[in-house]
């Protein structure tokens, strides 16, 4: 009997045809899987915001209307909707540091990468030195390593900013600060890059990273995240 990776309750296997033919074992119990909302039907075609149609959402239109931010990010792809369960998950994974939780989505992340960004260069969003010391690990790097084990260091975060989760939307979007720097220009040159992060909220972080990557010669920059709020 296996137990749920998240809530540690025993997983009750209900015997079915699925049990026989499924290759992957279950990592979450029924109650936890019920609370996850996979983004697989209708969403914004550009940023994966869950919505009623697949048109480009208003936020994306606004980004693209800005002369500074226009065409920085090709598109974003996310796995799950950032609901209440996801908030608890992130609190435990990122803030408490239960790193192994990322493993639960390994298969799905790999599949998402292969389907959308095959052959792209994987670049996790880096943390500042101060945040690294505080957390002891980089959650984006952990997610990136679920897709591929060797990751080249390309970006660093040179400015320590307040947690974006504590900022308002206008504060995130209006700022044109440049917290990132490319350390390894050679490996970025003429490459299609996919940024990996835990959450896409307004898209400001990935766009700031995309800015410096494009300047360093990247052909295109997209992003993939575990959650989309």
């Amino acid at each position: 009997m296996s137990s749920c990776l998240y809530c540690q309750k025993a997983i009750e296997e209900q015997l079915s045809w699925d049990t026989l033919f499924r290759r992957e074992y279950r990592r979450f119990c029924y109650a936890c899987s019920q609370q996850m909302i996979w983004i697989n039907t209708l969403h914004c075609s550009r940023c994966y915001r869950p919505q009623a149609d697949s048109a480009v959402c208003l936020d994306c239109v606004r980004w693209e209307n800005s002369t500074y931010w226009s065409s920085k990010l090709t598109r974003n792809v996310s796995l799950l909707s950032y609901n209440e369960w996801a908030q608890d998950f992130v609190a435990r994974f990122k803030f408490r540091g239960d790193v192994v939780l990322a493993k639960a989505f390994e298969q799905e992340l790999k599949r998402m990468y292969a389907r959308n960004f095959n052959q792209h260069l994987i670049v996790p969003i880096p943390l500042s030195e101060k945040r690294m010391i505080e957390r002891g690990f980089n959650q984006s790097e952990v997610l990136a390593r679920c897709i591929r084990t060797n990751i080249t260091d390309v970006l660093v975060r040179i400015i320590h900013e307040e947690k974006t989760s504590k900022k308002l939307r206008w504060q995130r979007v209006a700022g044109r600060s440049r917290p990132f720097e490319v350390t390894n220009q050679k490996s970025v040159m003429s490459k299609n890059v996919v940024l990996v992060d835990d959450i896409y909220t307004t898209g400001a972080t990935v766009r700031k990273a995309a800015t410096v990557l494009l300047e360093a010669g990247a052909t295109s920059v997209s992003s993939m995240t575990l959650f989309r709020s």
Partner: protein
Amino acid sequence: MKCVWVVPKGQFAPVVLPCDLVQQDDDVQSDAAVITHLKPSPPLPTLQGKSLLISELTDQQIITRRQLIAGTLQLSIGISLKRSEATCNRCGNQDQEQFAMFDCYWCGRNKCLYCRSCIMMGKVTTCTPLVHIPVAEPFPKTRLSWHGLLTDAQKSASKQMVEILQHRTNNELLVWAVCGAGKTEMLFPLIIEAIDQKKTLLIATPRTDVVLELIPRIRQAFPNLRSIALYGGSEERFQSSPLVISTTHQTRRYFQYFDVVIIDEIDAFPYHYDDSLRFAVNKAAKPSAKFYYLSATPPHSLIRKLKTNNQIAMINRRYHGYPLPVPSLKWIGDWRTYVERGKLPPKLTAWMNRQERESDRQLLIFVPSINVSERLESIIARKDIICVHSQHAKRKEIVEAFRHKQYHCLITTTILERGVTFPSVDVFILGAENDVFTIAALVQIAGRAGRSLEDPKGDVLFLHDGTTIAMKQAVKQIKRMNER
């Protein structure tokens, strides 16, 4: 963080120091390593007080070289490895599936193990030392006093408790008191005596609600004693006091600190089941500590263990002298289907109407699950009827508001089964046949009624869809208690 064995200049004894506190003229005795892998292993801690993670230290609590050398601060292993079997020294976890590996930046990209079992209280890893710091005990300057009165039954139990404090061989006492016997007041003479002897006390209980209920009563009785309350989210966890009232989880942050340990509701879930909580309480207690177990429904194993040495104090009368209300069993049929369809079971409506018509008391309705409590609240949809459960954001406020009679009726899960006092209530259990209502739970719930001198009676109804053995046993137990 990496550590190393060092003989500091001008000293003879080697000490374990973090690498960044080593000075040039120190005599380094070992390779630098994370604390779990340091050879030879650091000694077991001896400093009595708190055992904290570095991230839990306040700005005043800095790890200094001087303190480590003087031994007024000690570092010990967070996760020990013995033949590749890991043990978390903070929570006692030994389940290997509850340990996971990660790339740790703290010690320079090592593969570190961390404990998943206690991660919600902060992360313990193979490179994280536990910091042992002594705690200042601000004992009051004058002897405490309390001017309330105890009944004869309370007095004799109280006397037994104080006697154990001085007893040479007996270190444990079970205080077996019926619900509403006035357990809290019985503790007061013990608290006075222990504090007078400069002994530190811990009152541990499995439930946050009980901590919140106890603390104002104790503060009111002893305004000169600065007691602190510890529970998840408590603001007082950085303070120190000779009297700590804590959930069993939070005692993990203490190490061999308490002389007297009072465990309230010994049989209550999860203390009864969870070895890690037993570990936590034993770790917080001094090896010579005296243990007091309080319960209205103690487990048989404990009774058997303590019976022979006369280590049981019995109180089978409530402090007001009236008998315990005896529950009546009422069949209400398939109530679950009604609730699922968004309707109120007609028999429940009838009982509720009758209660409201004939009694001036408030009403507590216990239900088997959170789901049912929420459904019932929305079906009834009355402003003066509200539900509460462990996941409820306003749990604390609602219970407080009910106590102040702002609601007529409170629908609750078993979280309020014990340790809480409302002066004048009738009690219903909807779905008393459910497995969550064990004998102990039923006795406890029935014990919520008739607790005050002004209103020593109250109706208790087990509304069920088929009697269970637990229901019959509970009634039998209550009747037996009343006969003695």
